[in-house]
């Protein structure tokens, strides 16, 4: 690690004042950033510890849920309102990492964690446009089983590793931001960006901007929702493909549906095409399959991950079928 100073922020105003300084970095639970510091991929001059900021989960009158960004993953997954009203989010959280890591990791840090592409971490031996812009990408022609099949570019094929973010994307969450210039919000679907020519720019956050909270909208249909993660071993592994889904049925017809995919793209992937293909259609396995086909029509697999295309389709169909079995 290169040397850095450490300061603990006591409130958001102090955090953004310190975080606005040159080469400052916010520190949550450290479960990704400490690793990146050790590998010298990140080399900030100062760390601003924001784990002392709000970790409150507020059930608001309009039915929304406001989650402080310092909330630990375990606390969020365990919260009664999340378990009952947004089960896909609890399921996504407990599918991620290990219990020890979930006890440490914060909501804000989870959103801003970086890819687990092995070439990105191989500082001495591999080229990476995300780590060294313009250098080239060794993953495109390398071992790319875990990499993206949707929305990638010739510069980067990394995938976003978060489970939590897939659920937040499906739920239509809003992320609250604060900087020295003021406060604003971004839809979860707009927080992360696709790599295009600049994979080193991963989010639409501005320098020094701090995630202060995540807001879940009132969404009654989310009570009938779940998250399924397909991975190389049964626990403690990143997703090859994951699906967060909620569905609302009226008669035999899909009245509304929410779908997002993990493990397939540089960002948590909202399946807009599949959702559009399903709304108003009969709630049948045939409709589910057609929607999955629509979503994956543009998939561009690499040498080692062509299996993900069919896996994603089948997982979408299986998860929607599982929701149909559930009591509404």
């Amino acid at each position, binding site marked *: *690690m290169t040397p850095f100073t*450490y300061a603990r922020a006591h409130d958001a105003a102090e955090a953004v004042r310190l975080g606005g300084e040159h080469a400052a970095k916010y520190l949550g639970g450290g*479960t990704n950033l*400490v690793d990146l510091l050790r590998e010298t991929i990140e080399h900030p001059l100062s760390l601003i510890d924001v784990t002392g900021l709000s970790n409150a989960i507020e059930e608001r009158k309009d039915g929304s849920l406001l989650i402080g960004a310092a909330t630990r993953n*375990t606390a969020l997954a365990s919260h009664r309102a999340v378990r*009952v009203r947004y089960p896909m989010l609890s399921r996504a959280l407990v599918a991620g990492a*290990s219990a*020890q890591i979930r*006890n*440490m990791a914060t909501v804000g840090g989870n959103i801003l964690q970086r890819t687990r592409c092995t070439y990105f971490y191989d500082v001495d031996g591999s080229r990476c446009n995300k780590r060294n812009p313009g250098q080239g990408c060794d993953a495109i022609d390398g071992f790319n089983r875990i990499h993206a099949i949707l929305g990638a570019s010739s510069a980067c094929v990394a995938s976003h590793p978060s489970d939590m973010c897939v659920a937040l994307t499906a739920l239509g969450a809003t992320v609250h931001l604060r900087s020295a210039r003021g406060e604003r919000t971004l839809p979860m679907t707009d927080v992360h960006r696709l790599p295009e020519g600049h994979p080193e720019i991963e989010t639409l956050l501005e320098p020094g901007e701090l995630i202060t909270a995540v807001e879940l909208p009132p969404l009654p249909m989310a009570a009938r929702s779940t998250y399924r993660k397909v991975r190389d071993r049964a626990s403690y592994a990143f997703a090859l493909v994951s699906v967060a889904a909620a569905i609302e049925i009226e008669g035999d017809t899909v009245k509304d549906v929410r779908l997002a995919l993990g493990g397939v793209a540089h960002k948590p992937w909202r399946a807009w095409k599949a959702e559009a293909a399903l709304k108003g259609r009969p709630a049948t396995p045939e409709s589910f399959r057609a929607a999955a086909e629509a979503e994956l029509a543009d998939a561009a697999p690499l040498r080692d991950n062509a299996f993900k295309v069919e896996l994603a389709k089948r997982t979408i169909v299986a998860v929607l079928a599982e929701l149909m079995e559930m009591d509404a």
Partner: protein
Amino acid sequence: MVISINGAQTDLPADARVSLLDLLREHLHLFGTKKGCNQGACGACTVLVDGGERILSCMALAVQYEGRAITTIEGLASNGEMHPLQRAFIEHDGFQCGYCTPGQICSAVGMADELRRCVPSHVTADLSTETIALTHDELRERMSGNLCRCGAYNGIVGAIAEAHAETRAEEVA
């Protein structure tokens, strides 16, 4: 700036880069907590915060835990009596080389605390439940963050299941 380690107050290092794991091993010479992967993948460095919350000391900067109380494997025995989990690991041969054992035991202590608080896991079928029983599947899933390269999992699972059942019986009695 101080931190409590097994009940003893100690100064935090001036260098913010020192991990909690390196503070324990290199500065305080508490070698019970092990450095396996040093990247959050094995669980050998698991310690407890403020009495029961399990964390990975390799991924923690020591300065982040200023004012907190850390318990390591050296701090689990009380009045010369082994912790029930330590005793159960011996009885069930819950190890071969022993390198992962301190992390396994600290992790199991933290897991019991999570069960008391009804924290759900990946295999918890009903999220609305108010109590969670430590079934075989729950135990294996909840301990999946601790790897054992010797593959002594049968003994580990047996030890944790027995110690947990004994503790629960005492709590009910």
